[in-house]
């Protein structure tokens, strides 16, 4: 336990010192947004065992909402982020209410189909800019005084948001709600027989996950100053699954590691090999599925379990 605390402390120090270390803050912000997205996804997959193939819909819808409000209606960044998160939450409610009626592959297919619907709306709707997306989204001033134009200021805002979401997810999982969710994950009939309205729990988990994914999308819209179709595309949904699985589902820190690995690979390999990045990441994924199924953090945690006590199952 103490080791974990030290690791978190070091990581916090690193995160705070990023601008001083000469690491490019925009890249770190992208990484944090992806990490937040993956953490949100992990809440659904890791703790609710619901495999959604359409999470980019929430990420992208919130990004479009925020981008559009800031650009076309001159909203402040704070209000626009809140609006984006609300849009993602409502969309999550609608999609979740339909999807949780089925399980497994059917659940995945329903989320995929509805996400494609959102994609085509974003492609054809008049305010989204079609193939060109929304460009030149200004960052503005947070709460009217904090200028986000500086990368460093925005970095600390995004970092604070990420830490808040991370702690929130921990809190949710450790709450009675989270325990019931895990119970449903591990044995659904038993949870029903104990008298839990499992659909309510699943729906709430789905909406929470969609909302937080939307938060990540809204932040990304401000960080880069544009929203494009790739934010709502199927490949983004696939990427978040990959990040979560690679890092370790059902661990708190796994998605963060997964996001860091994928984002770094994309950033540095794309200069060297161009479009082959996708193939390389695919190979990494295959290796992960074949040899370390619990993901990076999952395997590390399992190794520690083995040394101390028999694993839980």
């Amino acid at each position, binding site marked *: 336990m103490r080791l974990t605390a030290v690791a978190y402390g070091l990581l916090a120090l690193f995160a705070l010192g990023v*601008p*001083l270390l*000469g690491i*490019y*803050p*925009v*890249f770190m912000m*992208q990484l944090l947004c992806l990490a937040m997205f993956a953490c949100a996804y992990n809440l659904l997959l890791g703790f609710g065992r619901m495999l959604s193939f359409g999470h980019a819909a929430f990420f992208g819808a919130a990004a479009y909402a925020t981008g559009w409000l800031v650009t076309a209606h001159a909203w402040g960044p704070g209000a626009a982020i809140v609006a984006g998160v609300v849009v993602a939450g409502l969309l999550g409610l609608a999609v979740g209410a339909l999807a949780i009626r089925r399980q497994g592959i059917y659940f995945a297919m329903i989320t995929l189909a509805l996400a494609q619907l959102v994609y085509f709306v974003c492609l054809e709707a008049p305010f989204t*800019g*079609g*193939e*060109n*997306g929304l*460009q*030149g989204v200004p960052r503005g001033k947070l709460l009217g005084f904090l200028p986000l134009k*500086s*990368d*460093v*200021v925005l970095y*600390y805002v995004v970092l604070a948001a990420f830490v808040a979401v991370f702690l929130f997810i921990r809190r949710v999982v450790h709450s009675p709600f989270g325990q019931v969710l895990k119970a449903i994950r591990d044995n659904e009939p038993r949870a029903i027989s104990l008298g839990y309205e499992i659909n309510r729990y699943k729906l709430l988990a789905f909406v929470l996950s969609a909302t937080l994914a939307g938060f990540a999308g809204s932040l990304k819209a401000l960080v*880069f*100053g*544009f929203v*494009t179709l*790739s*934010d709502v595309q199927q490949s983004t949904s696939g990427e978040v699954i990959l990040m979560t699985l690679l890092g370790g589902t059902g661990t708190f820190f796994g998605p963060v590691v997964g996001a860091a690995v994928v984002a770094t690979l994309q950033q540095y390999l*794309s*200069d060297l090999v*161009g*479009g*082959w990045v996708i193939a390389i990441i695919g190979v990494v994924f295959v290796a992960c599925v074949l040899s370390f199924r619990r993901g990076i953090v999952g395997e590390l945690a399992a190794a520690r379990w083995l040394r101390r006590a028999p694993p839980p199952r």
Partner: protein
Amino acid sequence: MKLRMLTLATTAALAAAAGGTARAADEVVIGDIDDMSGVYADVMGAAGVEVVKWAVADFGGSVLGRKITVLSADHQNKPDIGAAKFREWADQNGLNMLLGGSNTGVNIAMAKVAAVKHVPTFHIGPGGASLSNEDCTAYTVHYTYDTVALANGTATAIVNAGGKTWFYLTADYAFGTQLQAAASKVVEAHGGKNLGAVRVPLGAADFSSFLLQAQASGAQVLGLSNAGTDFSNSLKAANEFGITKTMKPAALLAFITDIHSLGLPAAQGLYLTTAWYWDLNPETRAFGKRFYARFNREPTMDQAGAYSATLTYLKAVKAAGSTDPDKVMAQLKKAKIDDMFTSGGSIRADGAMIHDMYVMQVKTPQESKYPWDYYKVVKKMAGAEAFGPITGLCPLAPAPK
């Protein structure tokens, strides 16, 4: 109190960050962001980076006593990747000038970054005329061609040759619809009629139902408002269906590489508009020869444009005696551009580079005498005719009264 502390800390961090990035002042950095691996990779791509390096070498490798370096990246046709890379180079590598390759969407995203970061940016590969209209900035130049010039060239030539009724096969995205709109306008202005259009998803594999709709329209001309593999696949399919016997196909954007991959039997008789062709004059042939020796194919107009744009920028830097973006842009908008790409070209206030365009017709296999002998010049259009008047949509250039 806490807020003040935070502000102080942030300021300190900012100062440190500023100190960290203030390098590369002894170099002039040119970047090229393009599709290096996807559907447009042959239009500019890796060979485009190579010609930029040629231009740098031909200029002498340095300007104002500063070494010139060339960076390149693959945007994978994603606006987010292109814009992020551009922003990173501007923040971290002291980028002085950017060349934007294919894809209008990616270039619009990069134009927004150019406006914020004040980096002179040359759009080489994209067609969307919005880049010198509603998406124009004080730091962007739309160099090679645009949808308006393509439509003015090809559509005018075909309507005048008797193709009065048109039906469009349009790629379902910004570029395709902009091109269709531009062509429709030209057709109507010359007394032709637009009978309809069908929008085809980007990268479609099966064109049969769309082509049957086109055939059923009874139009004389099939306007192919698409590009790259979409263009060659749709034309091939039209040939297979025998549609080209009753309808005349019109290529609204075709590169010489497309014609090469289609082959002359399929492409013969096609009208198209291009900014540059390797077999125009001794200078273009010399560039073609140099390119052919290295890549075993002739260059596209985009590759020639990339070479020319790099030289144009370096000449402007030399004339202005500085890499200061405002001074360089002012110099660019004064200068006349004379090189193997064009003669008497000039950059207008809205950023459009005004130069001659050529309406071409693809030769028949019998007419073609040697490898890559594909086009005959139908008409040379002066820049003003090709690119049309200033529209007033760009805030930098009010429409003439």
